[in-house]
């Protein structure tokens, strides 16, 4: 990631090389008029690097710490312990260590930089349609607007499942989807938001996360074992353990780090193995959605295949779903009625960080109306004046627009990921990259719906506000409850804390921080587990339900809830 930087845009400070409006007669727009990619107008609280190829949560959490610990500990291991062990034991040791290290780093980076399964927000038409559908049966004829009922019940596998309406994203959330307030996105099959990884863990990156913690447990156990062997051998040769430690002080550090890590990471791996085998998410496990706490026999996990092996295969080896947010696609040219501020982004700044609080980007005026696909396929989008643009967002929406412009060769769509070999961190799942902006060549990927710009609606841009890394130490009650529930939990060193607020907006926000306590953890002190700040308390009602955390939630956090409340107020004024 060395090549990529991001910069916060200050709209006032932006240098505009060209005057603001583009005269329609200009055939070839300046670089500043370059079409924006969808990641630049993404309404969630994510950050993007490398022109949208890499996505991380707004706060990187302690990802640098995680990475640093892994690199330092492994580095010390290879430098100080391996030579001795190779001499005395076998040269397979650095090989195994190297393989494990590579696995750990790659899966960590993939977990951090992959889209976890973010659901794009509803377009304004969709949102209106949903509200209309809900109002109709209610037959409200009066002028007072009733907000859409917040839940919908469906039956899955003879289980009644409630679908909740997300006020931020303006959709009814699919089953197992949850809205993460730290990232301000609805994430499919939401597991938890992991600060150690700096990203949500959801449908698309759960397997990377699982691979990461499993390989990390092997790595820490391996290093721990090797260092112990090293010290044991040295103290046999020499004059005891103290002498051995003096000779190889790095080993002491590794020992401490690994000792503390191995228990928590192993515990975490065990917990997630249990979750995988039962096809549960951390979110569901914590809420006890299917544990039958009501005592009835009817509640069981409707998503489970009732076979551990099938569950494991389905979760870990199932087909890799594509990214739904199409980060690198181009924003379509529609002028939406809800469009607001226009910001000129100098084209040179391709790795610009657009956090939505600061900017809401207007799509180019309709007068300059090249086909989005045509413009995306070449560097110089020329407007096609002969093509009259329908008022609707038809062009954006139809995948058929591939027909009209000349079709560049099909594989062009895949070109974009290829050259990107240099900037290190690995790989983003190719699916996102295939959806590159080359609209026409790849009709399947020319997704240019106006979700980015329009769909954010009032919700995305405005509320801003700090989402608050709330620092919670898990209360003993949490730990006990969690241990009680989980069959495979091994250690008390493994603590979970989560803050669950249930307000009348029915907006469930869950953040579940795993704390693999390692040697540095005590140094971290209080900020052990960052959880979300739902801040529903600020907006609407006091949080009811299960608020188990001992520390109080920060009332100022949670822009999303404030936003929802504001929207509800606005709506009620109609």
């Amino acid at each position: 990631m060395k090549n990529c930087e991001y910069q916060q845009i200050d709209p006032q400070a932006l240098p505009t090389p060209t005057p603001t409006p583009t005269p329609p007669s200009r055939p070839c727009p300046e670089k500043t008029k370059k079409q924006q990619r969808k990641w630049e107008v993404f309404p969630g609280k994510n950050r993007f690097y490398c022109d949208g190829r890499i996505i991380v949560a707004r706060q990187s959490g302690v990802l640098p710490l995680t990475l640093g610990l892994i690199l330092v500990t492994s580095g010390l291991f290879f430098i100080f312990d391996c030579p001795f062990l190779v001499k005395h034991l076998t040269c397979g040791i650095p090989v195994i260590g190297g393989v494990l290290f590579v696995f750990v780093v790659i899966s960590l980076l993939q977990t951090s930089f992959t889209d976890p399964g973010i659901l794009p927000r509803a377009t304004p038409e969709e949102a209106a349609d949903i509200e209309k559908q809900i109002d109709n049966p209610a037959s409200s004829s009066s002028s007072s607007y009733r907000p859409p009922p917040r839940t919908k019940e469906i039956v899955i596998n003879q289980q009644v499942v409630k679908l909740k309406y997300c006020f931020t994203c303006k959709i009814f959330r699919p089953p197992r989807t949850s809205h993460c307030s730290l990232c301000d996105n609805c994430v499919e099959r939401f597991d938890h938001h992991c600060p150690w990884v700096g990203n949500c863990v959801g449908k698309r990156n759960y397997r990377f996360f699982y691979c990461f913690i499993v390989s990390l447990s092997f790595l820490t156990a391996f290093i721990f074992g090797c260092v112990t062997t090293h010290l044991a051998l040295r103290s046999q040769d020499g004059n005891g353990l103290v002498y051995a430690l003096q000779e190889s002080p790095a080993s002491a550090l590794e020992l401490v780090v690994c000792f503390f890590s191995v228990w928590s990471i192993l515990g975490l791996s065990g917990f997630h193995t249990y979750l995988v085998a039962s096809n549960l998410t951390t979110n569901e496990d914590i809420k006890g959605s299917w544990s039958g706490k009501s005592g009835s026999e009817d509640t069981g996990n409707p998503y489970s295949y009732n076979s551990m092996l099938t569950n494991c295969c389905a979760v870990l080896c199932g087909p890799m779903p594509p990214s739904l947010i199409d980060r690198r696609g181009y924003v379509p040219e529609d002028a939406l009625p809800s469009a607001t501020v226009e910001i000129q982004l100098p084209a040179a700044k391709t790795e610009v960080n657009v956090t939505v609080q600061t900017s809401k980007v207007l799509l180019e005026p309709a007068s300059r109306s090249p086909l989005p696909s045509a413009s995306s396929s070449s560097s110089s989008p020329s407007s096609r004046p002969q093509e009259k643009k329908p008022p609707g967002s038809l062009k954006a929406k139809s995948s058929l627009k591939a027909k009209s412009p000349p079709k560049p060769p099909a594989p062009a769509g895949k070109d974009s990921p290829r050259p990107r070999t240099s900037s290190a961190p690995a790989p983003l799942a190719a699916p996102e990259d295939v959806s590159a902006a080359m609209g026409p060549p790849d009709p399947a990927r020319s997704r240019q719906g106006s979700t980015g710009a329009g769909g954010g609606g009032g919700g995305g841009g405005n509320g801003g506000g700090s989402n608050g890394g709330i620092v919670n130490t898990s209360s003993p009650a949490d730990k006990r409850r969690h241990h009680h529930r989980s069959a495979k939990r091994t250690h008390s060193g493994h603590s979970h804390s989560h803050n669950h607020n249930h307000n009348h907006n029915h907006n469930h926000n869950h953040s579940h921080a795993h704390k693999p306590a390692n040697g540095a953890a005590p140094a971290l002190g209080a900020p052990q587990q960052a959880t979300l700040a739902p801040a529903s308390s600020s907006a609407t009602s006091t949080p009811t339900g299960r608020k188990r955390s001992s520390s109080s939630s920060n009332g100022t956090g949670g822009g999303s809830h404030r936003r929802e409340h504001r929207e509800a107020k606005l709506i009620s004024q109609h």
Partner: protein
Amino acid sequence: MAETHSLQDLRQQAAIASKVFVQRDYTSGTICKFQTKFPSELETRIDKQQFEETIQTLNNLYAEAEKLGGKSYLEGCLACLTAYTIFLCMETHYEKVLKKIAKYIQEQNEKVYAPLGLLLTDPIERGLRVVEISIYEDRSIGSR
């Protein structure tokens, strides 16, 4: 049906009168499946059978994409062994099916829907939430 429209006509000259959204059907779980219920707004425009057939084919295609079987397991295991780096090189099975779906929708639009003044939007452009059907104003286009 007085006028028949071609796709070009629609895009260039017609105005969208309204949009119909076909929502997801979650009764079988989280797999991607759309409701086959026939929306009332389309009653005057298209044959119910045709519509249901389109949606059903889409559902089948998505089911194929998400199918758990030998092939997908193999792909998953191979990916796991290579630390998921093969996703950089290989197109996943899901993506291949998505291309098929895009082609199918394009075909349906050309053959069936555009002449009736309708347009299907690929669900992937809407985050696999809805099938959006745009209804165009019924006006005569002229000779074309």
